[in-house]
């Protein structure tokens, strides 16, 4: 579904991503793990067209993504859940969710999806009229995921969903991610919390200083002594 070939990202003279190649198949969840500054988020930001890569190609269903403007991704069926939540703080939960459907104009279907998304997140339903900025971090993350779902994507790019959340909230968020995946969503998950990411995903790529060093099925990575030592704190 998504094929990334030789992707390079540089900031000034510094190369953050040094020509990485990976792919995501339809219906699977792929984790991109690695330490801080390994280039995971830069990779995702390049995929989401939030920054201009220095080179490489990103093909989505055979179509070159790098020639699309950032707002064009949504109509292709790609949704980004930005790092650090990125909800609209002064809009209510409902308004936030509706913004997610901005690029759609099938009103009846939007209302149906709204119900569906709120069904996933009973917490958000309780707080439907509350300003998003007054929600807890975890609730905001749920809202960001819900908003992404509202665009009816086929591929979801999740940027560090566990960042800055209490462990119990992280568990909840990952439950949600698992549910979304079980409904057939293709997910590319960028995550520092390697253990959790590998537990929910089918395959994983380990990034180190801008390069992919290891790749395998997630359960094998979880068992790999080198990965365990470097990323799982053993």
């Amino acid at each position, binding site marked *: 579904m998504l094929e990334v070939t030789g992707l390079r990202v540089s900031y000034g003279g510094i190369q953050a991503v040094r020509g990485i190649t990976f792919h995501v198949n339809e219906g699977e969840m792929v984790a991109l793990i690695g330490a801080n500054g390994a280039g995971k988020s830069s990779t995702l930001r390049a995929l*989401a*067209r*939030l920054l201009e890569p220095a080179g490489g190609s990103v093909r989505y269903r055979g179509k070159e993504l790098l020639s699309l*403007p*950032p*707002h*064009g*991704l*949504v*109509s292709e069926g790609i*949704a*980004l*859940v*930005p790092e650090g939540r*990125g*909800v*609209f*703080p*002064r*809009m209510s939960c409902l*308004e936030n969710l509706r*913004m*997610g459907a*901005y*690029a759609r104009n099938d009103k009846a279907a939007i209302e149906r999806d709204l119900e569906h998304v709120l069904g996933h997140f009973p917490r958000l339903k309780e707080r439907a009229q509350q*300003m998003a*900025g*007054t929600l807890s971090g975890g609730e905001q993350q749920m809202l*960001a995921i819900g*908003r*992404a779902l509202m*665009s009816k994507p086929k591929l979801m790019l999740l940027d560090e969903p566990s960042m800055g959340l209490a462990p119990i909230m992280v568990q909840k968020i990952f439950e949600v991610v698992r549910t979304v995946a079980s409904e057939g969503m293709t997910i590319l998950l960028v995550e520092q919390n390697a253990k959790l990411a590998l537990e929910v995903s089918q395959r994983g790529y380990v990034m180190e200083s801008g390069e992919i060093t290891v790749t395998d099925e997630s359960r094998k990575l979880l068992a790999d002594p080198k990965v365990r030592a470097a990323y799982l704190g053993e």
Partner: protein
Amino acid sequence: MNDQVKKALPWQRHWLGVLLIAAVLVAVPFIAALGGQAWVRIANFAILYIFLALGLNIVVGYAGLLDLGYVAFYAVGAYVYALLASPHFGLHLPFWVILPLGAAIACMFGMLLGAPTLKLRGDYLAIVTLGFGEIIRIFLNNLNAPINVTNGAQGITLIDPIRIGDFSFAETSVIFGVELSGPQKYYFLLVALAILVIMVNVRLQDSRIGRAWQAIREDEVAAKACGINTRNIKLLAFAMGASFGGIAGGVFSAMQGFVSPESFSLMESITILAMVVLGGMGHIPGVILGAILLTALPEVLRYGIEPLQDAIFGRSIVDPESLRMLIFGLAMVLVMRFRPAGLWPSSQRRRELAESEK
């Protein structure tokens, strides 16, 4: 269904209020005329500033782009009118050609300013727009050589008034048995224009575009992730705001019969911005209130302070002009201290500020 009911209701519920406002609007030029035509002109300027402030409100209030050079578009509109309807080039095009043309050219300048500043926010954008406003003014001041385009600092005189056939807005005429002076006629024209800009503002507020502006104001990355074409939507804000500035400039030109670069100083930009901010950013009634207050204040000072000083001290001690800036500044400080969201803010903005204080 529900939406339709909601849209229809305010007018039905407030029909008495609407009627009252209409009556006041009609009465104003006649009441003002009792004190002399100068007062009608002041009322005209108040409405012209409402128009300008609501144009700027689109850029600053809705899209959240701090524009300190708004007067540049006003100037562009004014000079387009002045050059195409005055003896300066010997051109006398009718107003219905020039006003839209002025709006279009101002719109073009708006995009010219918007395009390179798309990535700037807040203070940085403010500085660039401020510079832009000054560049336009300096151009107007100096474009009298090698080819005399703008007539430099002397400005352009003898600009045609707005004229429909033989009906000139500059002369007194009798319509339906009512004698209307020139300024009174401009008054009604300005009210019509103001209603137009108010309607555009109202429609934009709850539109798809309005929501996109709000999204960009709050989180640009998230707005992009929602599929909003942030570039075009921001440019649209600049373009629309600039067009209204252009129209206001054209009417200003026609009404005054004279333009010169000094009417378009930075101070003017700041005054218009102050109207928006003092009144209540993004809230239409607030902006209108701000525009009226800030236009009326200097006039009240001019006509009130001097006689007052004469009465108390027997002579004028403080020049009303310098007092104006003093009171202006004081009003700003007080409003920002006690009503940071403006005198009459929208519930939305009040929420935003209450939150950022936490």
